[in-house]
C-alpha cells in the first residue's frame, strides 16, 4: 500500500445504516462472561429491551439483562432510588453472584454520580454486603460497543483482583477482547491448556454463551469466570492481553497485582499464531504439542492451496476496531487488497490498520466504497448495502442474526485461521466453478434478496462479485 487515506473527513449529519452499537451493550456482553451474573442498565427500559433483542438474535440464547426502568420524573430528579430498588429486587429474585451496572445516555446526560451511588448503596444496605457489584460508566453518546466492553473488563479487574503473596505455577490470566467469539475463547483455552497451563479468562464467554443446557432455569448467566477466580488473578505468572482494547484493563491489573503482561494484538494468521504459541511454550517450558504442530502444517498447506483465489481480490472490511485490525491484517497476509477499512467509532488501534482508506463510518459508507469490489466483510446489517452495491457479503462480527452458530465461529489459532481462509477462498472458488452452470443463460436475472443485489456481471474478475456460491 503506497498511500493510505486515513480518516477522510465525514461531514454527514445523518448516520445511515449504522455500524455502531452502543457502549452499554458491549458492557453487558462482558458481564455475561462472568458466572451467574446479571447485567443491569441504569436507564429507561427501552435501552435494555433493544440491547437484549440484539444479543438474543445474535447468540440465540436467553440473555439476562435488567433495567432500572427510569421514567420522566426519576430522570429529572435523579435515579438513585430506581437503582437501589433494582439491585434489591434482582438480589431477592435471582440471587446472582454479580450484578454489573452500566449507565446509559439517559443517566449520563443527567450526570449521575456512580461512585457516590455505590457508596450510598453499601452504606444503606449492610445486609447485602455479600452481593458483588461492579458499576461502570458507559454513556451511549461516547464511544461504542468495544469501549463499553473494555470499560467493564477494567471495572471487573479493578473491583476484584487482589495482589498475592505467592505465584501459582502454571496459572495465567487472559484478558479477552470482544473481537473474540465464545468459540474463539474456547479455542484459546484449549491451546493454552495444551501447554499444561491453567488459564483464568476474563471474561469467559465460552462458558456462558456457547449453547448451554441448564437443568434449572435461572435468570442469570449460566457460567463464566467466577468472582473468586478474578480475585486470584494476582497469583498468576503472566497476563496474556488479547486485543488493543484490553490495554487499560491490563494496566489496571498489572498495577494492582504486579503480574507482568504479554500483549497480542491479534491471534489470526500464521505469524500471529506463531507468536502466541511460542510465548506459551516459553511460559510453560514445554514443547509445542503435536496437535498444534499438525494444525500449523495444515494452515501452511491451506495458504498454499487457497492463495490463488484471494490474491489481489478487492475487499472492504467493516467491523469493531480490534476485529477490523485482526481481519484486515490477516487479509493482507493472504495477498488481499483491502480497499477500505471502516470502524464504527474512533479507537487507538485504527492507527495500525492498513487499507486504502481507513475511516470511521457506517454501512452507507461501506456501500459507497465497495462498488466494483469483490467482497464485503461485515456484520449482518451489511446485507442491504451489499445488495445495493452488488457485492457479496461475508458475515463476521456482531450482530449476525441471519446465520446460525455466529457465536461459535472460530478464527483464531492455526485451525481458526485456516478455516477462515477456506471460507473466504471458497466464495471465489465456488463463483469460478459454478459460474458456467448457473450463468449459462446470458440474460440471467438475479432476484435473490441480499445475495447478488441484481448486479450485472459477465465473467472474469467480475464473476467473483456474483457471490451466488451455490453452497
Amino acid at each position, binding site marked *: 500500500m503506497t498511500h493510505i487515506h486515513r480518516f477522510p473527513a465525514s461531514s454527514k449529519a*445523518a448516520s445511515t445504516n449504522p455500524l455502531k452499537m452502543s457502549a452499554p451493550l458491549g458492557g453487558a456482553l462482558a458481564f455475561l462472561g462472568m458466572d451467574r451474573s446479571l447485567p443491569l442498565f441504569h436507564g*429507561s427500559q427501552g435501552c435494555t429491551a433493544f440491547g437484549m*433483542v440484539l444479543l438474543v438474535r445474535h447468540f440465540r440464547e436467553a440473555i439476562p439483562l*435488567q433495567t432500572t426502568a427510569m421514567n420522566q420524573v426519576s430522570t429529572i430528579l435523579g435515579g438513585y432510588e430506581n437503582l437501589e430498588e433494582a*439491585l434489591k429486587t434482582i438480589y431477592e429474585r435471582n440471587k446472582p453472584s454479580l450484578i454489573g451496572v452500566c449507565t446509559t*445516555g*439517559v443517566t449520563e446526560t443527567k450526570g449521575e454520580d456512580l461512585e457516590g451511588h455505590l457508596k450510598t448503596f453499601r452504606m444503606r444496605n449492610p445486609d447485602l454486603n455479600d452481593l458483588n457489584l461492579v458499576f461502570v460508566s458507559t454513556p451511549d453518546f461516547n464511544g461504542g460497543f468495544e469501549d463499553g466492553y473494555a470499560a467493564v473488563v477494567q471495572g471487573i479487574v479493578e473491583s476484584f483482583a487482589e495482589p498475592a503473596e505467592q505465584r501459582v505455577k502454571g496459572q495465567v490470566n487472559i484478558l479477552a477482547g470482544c473481537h473474540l467469539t465464545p468459540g474463539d475463547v474456547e479455542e484459546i483455552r484449549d491451546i493454552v491448556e495444551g501447554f499444561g497451563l491453567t488459564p483464568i479468562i476474563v471474561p469467559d464467554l465460552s462458558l456462558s454463551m456457547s449453547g448451554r443446557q441448564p437443568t434449572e*432455569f435461572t435468570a442469570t448467566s449460566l457460567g463464566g469466570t467466577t468472582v473468586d477466580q478474578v480475585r486470584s488473578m494476582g497469583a498468576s505468572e503472566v497476563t496474556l492481553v488479547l486485543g488493543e482494547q484490553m490495554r487499560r484493563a491490563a494496566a489496571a491489573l498489572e498495577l494492582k497485582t504486579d503480574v507482568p503482561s504479554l500483549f497480542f494484538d491479534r491471534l489470526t494468521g500464521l505469524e500471529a499464531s506463531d507468536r502466541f504459541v511460542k510465548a506459551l511454550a516459553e511460559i510453560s517450558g514445554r514443547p509445542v504439542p503435536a496437535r498444534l504442530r499438525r494444525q500449523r502444517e495444515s494452515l501452511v498447506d491451506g495458504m498454499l492451496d487457497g492463495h490463488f483465489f484471494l490474491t489481489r481480490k478487492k475487499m472492504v472490511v467493516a467491523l469493531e476496531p480490534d476485529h477490523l485490525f485482526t481481519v484486515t491484517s490477516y487479509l493482507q497476509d493472504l495477498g488481499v487488497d483491502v480497499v477500505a477499512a471502516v470502524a464504527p467509532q474512533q479507537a487507538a488501534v485504527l492507527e495500525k490498520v492498513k487499507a486504502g482508506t481507513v475511516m470511521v463510518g457506517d454501512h452507507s459508507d461501506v456501500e459507497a466504497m465497495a462498488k466494483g469490489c469483490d467482497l464485503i466483510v461485515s456484520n449482518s446489517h451489511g446485507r442491504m448495502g451489499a445488495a445495493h452495491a452488488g457485492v457479496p457479503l461475508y458475515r463476521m462480527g456482531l450482530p449476525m442474526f441471519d446465520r446460525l452458530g455466529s457465536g461459535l465461529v472460530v478464527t483464531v489459532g492455526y485451525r481458526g485461521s485456516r478455516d477462515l481462509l477456506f471460507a473466504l477462498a471458497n466464495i471465489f472458488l465456488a463463483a469460478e466453478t459454478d459460474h458456467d452452470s448457473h450463468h449459462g443463460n446470458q440474460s440471467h436475472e438475479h432476484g435473490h434478496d441480499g445475495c447478488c443485489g441484481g448486479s450485472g456481471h459477465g465473467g472474469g474478475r467480475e464473476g467473483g462479485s456474483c457471490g451466488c456460491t451455490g453452497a
Partner: protein
Amino acid sequence: MLADKIQEVFNEPGCGVNQAKTTKERKKGCSKPLKPGAAAGGCAYDGAMIALQPIADVAHLVHGPIACLGNSWDNRGTRSSGSQLYRTGFTTDLSELDIVHGGEKKLYKAIKEIVQQHNPPAVFVYQTCVPAMIGDDIEAVCKYAAKKLGVPVIPVNAPGFVGSKNLGNKLAGETLLDHVIGTREPEVSTPNDVCIIGEYNLAGELWLAKPLMDEIGIRIQSCISGDGRYNEIAAAHRARVTMVVCSQALINVGRKMEERWGIPYFEGSFYGVTDMSDTLRTMATMLVQRGADPAMLNRAEAVIAREEAAVSKRLERYKPRFTGKRVLLFTGGVKSWSMVTALEEAGLTIVGSSTKKSTKEDKEKLKKRKGEEFHMWDDLKPKEMYRMLRDSEADIMLSGGRSQFISLKAKVPWLDVNQERHHAYAGYDGIVNLCEEIDKTLSNPIWRQVRLPAPWE
C-alpha cells in the same frame, strides 16, 4: 405539551378498560409503574417506531445517541410491496459534543441530507430521551425543515422514558392524527374504501387478507401502517369505514377519525377462521350501510362460505395429528383470544394463555368459553413457565421470541407467533400455515433424541 398528550391518550373513551374506571382512576392513566430490576419490554420510542416504521416510503430518522437506533434497526419482519426506504436506519448518532451544544442544528442538517439524497414523500423524526432531556425542540426543527425543504417533516414526540411501548403506539397514533391524516385528498375515492389501523404486515400477513377483500370489492384505501404509503395515509380521512386491528394500541386513531370525519370504526381481527369471517362480514355490512352496492354483501357471504369450507377441509388432516396435543399460548395477550379460537378449530387443546395485555372483555370471553379451570396468567414468571414445560404440562409453546429459550431449554417444541416470525398466520390461509408449522415442529424427530441422556449417564 407532551404531558397533555399523554393524559389525553390515557383518557381514551373508546377504550373499554377506561370506561369501566372511575374519573379518579382514569386520571392516573393506564401505565402501571414499572418495577426497577423486574421490568421487561420496550419503551415509548420503541412503541412509536413499531407503529410507524411500516410506512414504507418514508424516511424514519431517529434523533438520539446510537443506542436507540444502532441496537434496534432492521429487527422487524414487516414487509413492503414497493419502496424499501423504511428499512434504512437513519440516526443523528448524537455525541458528547452534540449534547453539550444541543442537537437541533445537526438534526436539521440530517433531515436536509436525507431529503436531498432520498427524496422521500415525508420524513418522520423520532425524539428520544437524551435530546428530550437537553431540550431539543424537534417540533420546531421539523416545522422549520418542512418549510425550508418543501417536504412534510413529522415530529414523533415519544421519548423512551415517558412510558411503555403501548403508550408509544398511542403517541404514534396521535402524531398521525395531528400531522398526517387529512392533509391530502386522495386521487381516487370509492364507496368501497376502508382504512385498516394497527395491521403491520408482518411476514406479509396483510397480503393474505387482501385478495379476499379484492374479490368482495373492498378496497384498502390505506393501511396504518403495514405496507403503508405516506400519501395514502394522509388521505385516510376519505375512507368509508375503518377497521381497528390492534385495538389496545391504536383505538385512539379509529375513534378520532370517527369524531373528526364521521368514519365509523369496528374492532376486528384477521386471526382465526371465525374472526376472519366476522371481519369480512362486518366490513361489507358497514360499507353497504354507508352507500356501497348491496351486492357486496352477497359477494362477501359467498367468499366466506367458500373459504370456510376450504379451510375446514384443509384442517381435517391436522385434526387426528393434533388430538390430545396441548398448547401453552404466550402472546403477551394481544392476540390471545383470536389465537385460541383458531387453534381449537384445528383440534388442539389450549392449556393456558397469558392475558397481560388483554382487555377485561377479552378475559371475560376467555373465561366464558374455556371455563374457570383455564389458566390465565397476567404475569407468569419464566421460572414457573420453565417448570410447566419441563414437567410436560404442554406439548408446545407458542410465544414471542423473548421467551423462546425458556421452551427450547426445557426441550419443548416452540413456535414464534410474534413480531419476528417469518410465517404469515393471518386469514384463512394463515391458519393453515400456522397448523402446518405446529405440525412440522411437533412431529420433528429431534424431540425424542434431545431428551435422551448421554449414554454414560
